């Protein structure tokens, strides 16, 4: 019953065409590069990808994009990969743009079993088009729905064998949120340790959220993405 998988393919067995996949990271920082690499080698299509960005051109999720495996992207900042714009122009991808705080909050709401929430962000802008406004105590808010995924692919620093996670600096970003918001959660880590080696006060993601763990084989360095 170990959560630890030796092969990326095994960890990704649960991913099917047409699913909604949550992918951690802020650009390539904190992105699950090994799992993304695994997806590029897997025969899947029509994925809805929820991620702050769609990688960079030819890197991370950018490879998946260029393979035409992504039907729809939900994120806050696609500008950092120019290929997204090209695909969008050609009608080859659907995009849903959300303010970054709304993206993060919707994922948290999804993980917390909430249906949606009211935020001030975006009120009166084009991103409010078609969304319900509501006055609460004299302030105008926008209704935003929770986001949930079929699978979450996330990146952490260390996992213990149970699946408790700690993160590393600004590579934390969306990962702990996505860990809560999908039916199946797969994490790649720098190191797997024994239960008890992570301080109970310091664990960011408790093990009940995690289904599979793999060691990272593709990592981000100053020189870019490299095999470990």
């Amino acid at each position, binding site marked *: 019953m170990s959560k630890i998988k030796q092969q990326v393919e095994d960890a990704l067995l649960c991913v099917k065409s047409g699913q909604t996949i949550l992918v951690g990271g802020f650009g390539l920082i904190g992105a699950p590069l090994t799992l993304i690499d695994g997806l590029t080698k897997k025969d899947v299509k029509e994925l809805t990808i929820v991620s702050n960005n769609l990688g960079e051109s030819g890197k991370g999720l950018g490879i998946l994009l260029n393979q035409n495996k992504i039907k729809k992207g939900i994120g806050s900042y696609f500008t950092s990969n120019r290929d997204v714009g090209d695909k969008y122009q050609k009608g080859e991808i659907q995009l849903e743009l959300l303010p970054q705080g709304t993206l993060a909050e919707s994922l948290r709401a999804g993980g917390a079993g909430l249906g949606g929430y009211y935020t001030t962000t975006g009120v009166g802008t084009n991103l409010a088009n078609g969304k319900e406004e509501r006055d609460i105590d004299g302030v105008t808010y926008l209704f935003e729905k929770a986001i949930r995924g079929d699978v979450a692919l996330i990146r952490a620093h260390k996992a213990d064998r149970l699946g408790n996670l700690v993160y590393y*600096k600004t590579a934390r*970003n969306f990962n702990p949120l996505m860990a809560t918001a999908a039916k199946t959660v797969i994490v790649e880590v720098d190191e797997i340790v024994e239960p008890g080696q992570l301080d109970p006060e310091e664990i960011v993601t408790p093990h009940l959220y995690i289904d599979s763990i793999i060691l990272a084989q593709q990592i981000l360095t100053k020189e870019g993405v490299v095999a470990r």
Partner: protein
Amino acid sequence: MSTQLSKQELQHLIAKRVAKELKGPCTVNLGIGIPTLVAEYLDDDQVYLHTENGLLGVMDVEEDKIDPNLVNAGKLPVGEAIGSSFFNSADSFAMIRGGHVDVAILGALQVDERGIIANWAVPGKNIMGVGGAMDLLVGAKKVIVTMNHTSKDGQSKILKECTYPITSTRSVDMIITELAVFKVEDKQLKLVELMPGASIEEVREKTEANFIE
């Protein structure tokens, strides 16, 4: 006047002027572009820098200490100050949206004469990115906009009305360009300072918006 200075020098001039506005203790979020430069001119050690990707306590980093997993909102390498903390994106935007960040320094494409800004989309181009701009505008207690006074083709970027999609219905508090410093009071622009070398005539000429002198 300012034609003698390079674009980069003008940006530093603006950043330096912004830094004068920041008196600690306060928490300040620095946007991408000119705002990033502000960090170089801070001399108050009670000004704490927040970056929306999950760090309170941003500081400069030396070349040899760069960590690819320690970056700011522009994905540029930063350092971590003593007393800093890391958090996830929902917690980071809870700080912003919840009114816990004192000042946001943002860039803008346009500002209108009520202080409403447009900084995330250009008509006719794909609308592809918004990032944290809308959250910062609704959440930060004070918003200071830094921008070039005019576009590359010499058009005023301080307009009667924005022609680009607005980022929020909230007016910013202050606008700092290479020519002038405006405050926004009662939804009106008020010129409060000329930047070094700028004349009132030049500001009048290059500002489409009405403003109080």
